[in-house]
């Protein structure tokens, strides 16, 4: 086919992306009375926190809400984003797409945050249905006092489900 171009290959963000990518308001996808915090830790294959990871979230959002958050992990591997829970989209349960970048990842990995307290919607979600039953729990954010907790395990027994987009 004429005119078709091959894509530029991915490379790692490396250890020093924080000089260029994060910014002060970056972790806030949405704020206001309905906003909640989704936080967690990013862990490697030995369960050690990853202090140089970047979590990006994206959800469809009504006008006036950015819907995107970019949050680096801290020295303890923790990240936190401020957002609102998205609505269900047709048959799809409420979810937030996540890209994770870090030194040692040559290409982003993609996962989805679902909400553990949306059991009926989750049971009908076509994407969750593709995930082996014993791994679905890795995609469920657990309710907390101020929002939800969602840890990301890059490797290991509790490895998070990652998707090919």
């Amino acid at each position, binding site marked *: 086919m004429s005119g078709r171009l091959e894509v530029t290959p991915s490379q790692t963000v490396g250890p020093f992306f924080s000089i260029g*990518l994060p910014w002060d308001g970056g972790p806030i996808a949405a704020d206001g009375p309905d906003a909640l915090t989704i936080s967690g830790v990013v862990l490697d294959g030995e369960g050690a926190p990853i202090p140089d990871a970047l979590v990006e979230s994206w959800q469809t959002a009504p006008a006036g809400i950015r819907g995107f958050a970019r949050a680096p992990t801290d020295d303890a591997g923790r990240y936190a984003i401020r957002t609102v829970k998205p609505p269900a989209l047709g048959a799809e349960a409420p979810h937030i797409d996540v890209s994770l970048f870090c030194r040692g990842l040559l290409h982003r990995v993609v996962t989805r945050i679902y909400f553990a307290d949306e059991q009926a919607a989750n049971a009908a979600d076509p994407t969750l249905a593709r995930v082996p039953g014993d791994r679905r729990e890795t995609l469920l954010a657990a309710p907390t006092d101020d929002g939800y907790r969602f840890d990301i395990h890059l490797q290991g027994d509790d490895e998070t489900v990652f*998707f090919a987009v």
Partner: protein
Amino acid sequence: MHEGFRRDAPGVHPALDDAGYKSTRLRHPRQPLVYLPQSVTELSGPQLGPERVTGALDHDLTRQHAGEPLGERIVVSGRVLDGDGRPIRDTLVEIWQANAAGRYLHKGDQHPAPLDPNFSGAGRCVTDANGRYEFITIKPGAYPWGNHHNAWRPQHIHFSLLGQAFAQRLVTQMYFPGDPLFAFDPIYNSVRDPEGRARMVSSFDLERTVPDWALAYDFDIVLRGRESTPIEEER
């Protein structure tokens, strides 16, 4: 019906498990990726340009401080295209890099080379109606890293692209033509296809080189194109 983005062919991007790049060892998923049909969330994306590009000099890394940085001044420009050759306009392009001595302005960079008080190493711009972007910066230095004995990174500039949708998101590195370190760098060589590696290397651009002022390098970035059929088929 949504028009999806063409999925990347196998081998276009590096494998996540790369024996030559040690940091991948505990940081790559071992389970197979699960196929995600592209739905509304993946087919849309943030438009961050107006929020992130706030100053007239965000694209000029040589004019962000009181004085000029040391090093070889360069112009880096090109187009952001999709896989069908269509320009991607109004999209945010973010870069970050080491200074001319090969040192990043980052607490984790312990390379004993000087910091430059006139260089922060980060820039942003938005593509124009033809998908063009342009940065003015200095050529980054090569620097050592701990991957293996006498390991050095080729000179490079990190690029981050948001594209038009979540499915197009890309982070890559731009290299300079003819770098003698290419043969020894596991990150560059994590792309196995020589033609793929070549797509990460800028070319010297005499036409845009500014007489008596700065050399220019041309670097086009290609993000995924659209599926030709509206209904995506599962491989």
